[in-house]
């Protein structure tokens, strides 16, 4: 039995550039840095506080949803229902704002938890593939939201809720602050808690996790519940920023953006690893890329094609690594 090199390529700095693992590990940060550098050199008024602030505010909901998605993908799953969950949250808000801000928030987040619990149960107890299990609520969730909202867009006037969207603390927009705090919280959850490590173990080797007596079902349901709650929160924040509840369009294609952020951030689709910081960077990269192209009068179409190319590249790199 030959022993594999105890330490992977570390010796020669140039050698690592040919190692796919290196790209999976650090590629996304390099790309973010490169985009920022490019803009610093070639784009006017890009690296201004105002612009950066706008970019961060825009990316915050994606980051929040992507955090939950990263956990789900870490268990070798996927959650297609996040966009619909956002719609459910936004539809519920105006219905319960009459009872006050906190009850309305609680109901919205609870809806996210319920969606997550249903998804998690379908995946872990019934044993459905995650894509199938979450597809049902993807289809039905938004419909339910529209039914509850009577298909109408409603203006939000509650000052408390609106301040969530527009307010800031120490000059940092609240939305961004919440996303940042959650990123740290999820990082800690993954790295420092029993639950977090069990997520990674369940995703990395389900059989081994069962043999080690881990509560596999509980872990899976928990992960989908967290993902649902985070999506609902993102829905609340997006509603606050829009100053309106619009269940027909809020969060459409969010599942794609979130999955993209996670994948580009270097989290492998076959589970066993959750890269929280990478996910945040992945979301940021996509946002910055789009903004850069817009600033250079390159249209949305180019951004989408570029996005597609980046996804393929990210997955290809991850695949190369696995097959070694």
């Amino acid at each position, binding site marked *: *039995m030959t022993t594999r090199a*105890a*330490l992977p390529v570390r010796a020669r700095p140039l050698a690592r550039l040919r190692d796919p693992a290196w790209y999976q590990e650090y590629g996304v940060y390099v790309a973010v840095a490169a985009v920022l550098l490019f803009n610093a050199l070639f784009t006017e008024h890009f690296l201004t506080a105002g612009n950066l602030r706008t970019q961060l505010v825009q990316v915050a909901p994606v980051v929040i949803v992507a955090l939950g998605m990263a956990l789900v993908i870490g268990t070798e799953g996927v959650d297609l229902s996040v966009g619909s969950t956002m719609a459910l949250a936004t539809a519920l808000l105006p219905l319960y704002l009459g009872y006050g801000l906190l009850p309305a928030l609680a109901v919205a987040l609870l809806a996210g938890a319920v969606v997550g619990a249903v998804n998690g149960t379908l995946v872990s107890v019934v044993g459905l593939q995650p894509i199938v299990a979450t597809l049902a609520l993807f289809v039905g969730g938004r419909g339910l939201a529209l039914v509850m909202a009577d298909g109408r867009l409603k203006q939000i006037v509650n000052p408390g809720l609106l301040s969530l969207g527009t307010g800031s603390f120490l000059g940092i927009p609240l939305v961004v602050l919440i996303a940042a705090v959650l990123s740290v919280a999820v990082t800690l959850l993954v790295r420092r808690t*029993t639950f977090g490590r069990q997520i990674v173990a369940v995703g990395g*080797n389900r059989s081994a996790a069962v*043999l080690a*007596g881990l509560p596999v079902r509980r872990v899976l349901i928990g992960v989908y519940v967290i993902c649902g709650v985070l999506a609902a929160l993102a829905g609340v924040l997006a509603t606050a920023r829009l100053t309106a509840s619009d269940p027909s369009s809020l969060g459409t294609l969010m599942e794609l953006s979130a999955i993209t952020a996670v994948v580009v951030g270097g989290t492998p689709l076959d589970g066993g*690893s959750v890269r929280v910081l990478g996910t945040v960077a992945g979301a940021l990269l996509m946002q910055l890329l789009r903004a850069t192209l817009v600033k250079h009068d390159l249209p949305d179409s180019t951004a989408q094609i570029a996005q597609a190319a980046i996804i393929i590249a990210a997955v290809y790199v991850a695949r190369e690594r696995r097959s070694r």
Partner: protein
Amino acid sequence: MAPSEAVPHAPAQGRTARPEGVTAPPTGDAVLEARSVSKRFPGVVALDDVSFALRAGETHALVGENGAGKSTLIKTLTGVHRPDGGELRLAGRPVSFARPAEAQRAGISTIHQEVNLVPLMSVARNVFLGREPRNRLGLIDFARMHRETTELLDGFGLRVDPRKPLHTLGIGTRQMVALARAVSVDAQVVIMDEPTSSLEPREVETLFRVIGSLRGQGVAVLYVSHRMDELYRICDRVTVLRDGRHIHTGDLAGLARTRLVSMMLGRDLSEARRTGPTGLGGAEHHTARTPVLTATGLDRRHQLHDVSLSLYGGEVLGLGGLLGSGRSETAKALAGVLGLDSGDITVGGRKLRRTGPAGAIRAGISLLPEDRKAEGIVPGLSVRENIVLAAMPRLSRFGVVSRRKQDRVVDIFMRRLRIKAASPEQKVGELSGGNQQKVLLARWLCLEPKVLLLDEPTRGIDVGAKAEVQGLIDELAREGLAVLLISSDIEELIEGADRIVVLRGGSVAGELAGDTVTESHLLDVLADHSPVPAGTDPAAQEDPR
């Protein structure tokens, strides 16, 4: 090479001891021949310079324990793997198969170990997949397909509706369908990998009849099985593989069963010389009076029949048996991983309720599984995290992992087991097999179990690590732990175990204790597989008719 002292029944060890030309068939006779074939996988040499030939019209047994290289050899012959060295010859001409399809077109059919058919498709579609009969319009002619399938299966004495989806049939019937597919392509060579492992006696008879008719047609059959009585009944010659090397080829008639078994299990002499004796003490351990674990009447259809055993604190109980005898299944049943149809397991006087692995772990049973990669390590996690995986709840407060407690435990076990890693934070997937195994041992030991079940703890790890693991097993038993040891390494079992329970065909075939724990006794129990009369087979008795 000198006659072996370690394995008295096997004077002919290794290739060089066998006079060339006596057992190797004349090349002209050979339908399919492998010449010095080698195959390496990352970290493993699966086949090392293996040569053998299959003659037309013969039924040739291929035997060897797990990891001997049988599956790799079959896959090399059938185009699933390409050999790294050596060549294949079909009817005397060199061939090379890039894909299974090419081997099949050349007339080599295979029935793989797990029935490789498509369960959701009908019997007829499975038989004719990839070569469906067409009508004049170029569309599949189902009437003809069903008719031919029925005729084919009739020839096997099997009446099945060819339209039935395969998954609605029993495993035995599926095996027959696989056989029908294999022979219906006018094969020159049919390779059968454990064809009888899930057949009822009646079905085995049918299979043998089919093999007989193949022989009559001049088809060469390569027959892989661990059932001695079957081999002796239907095979003409036998080839033994061990650790990826060719050990023996010769006529089966006149070859003593014990000799065959010892060739399958025996340790290579040169290796024994180099490494010295095993790390196991071989001495008697001080055994407690009352058993820590008792299992009575464990039953699981097709796998275990009325297996009972007791395990005492401070002893190493060996669980012997050839591949497929139910060794791993017994261990998995004890650890709550494998469900049972009936049977009781008691630990420390308390009956174990069937709550799965978590319940067994709580009761103090730990299982080191046989398949390290698939069921053991979580490759993306660090050495530290793999060690504490099962113990995590005990090392955390309010769900937050206590790094300090963890580091202490990890440090203790990395030292004690001498786990060689760059740091506890290194990913376990980057370690050698031996160190991965030690990490898994640490995972179970840090739970402070009462009973430790070890399924092939030293397979596939290097010699040094092997001795260390064996030493550790000895030490653990001395400390009072009850250890169940499963091993295909006969020397390891003899030296390591105080008692040995031998399984055969899913039931207990005998128990060796005290002076009878010797190699010759073990080989006798292992090899003496008296044919089971069809009427007395437990599986057959379940059938009301």
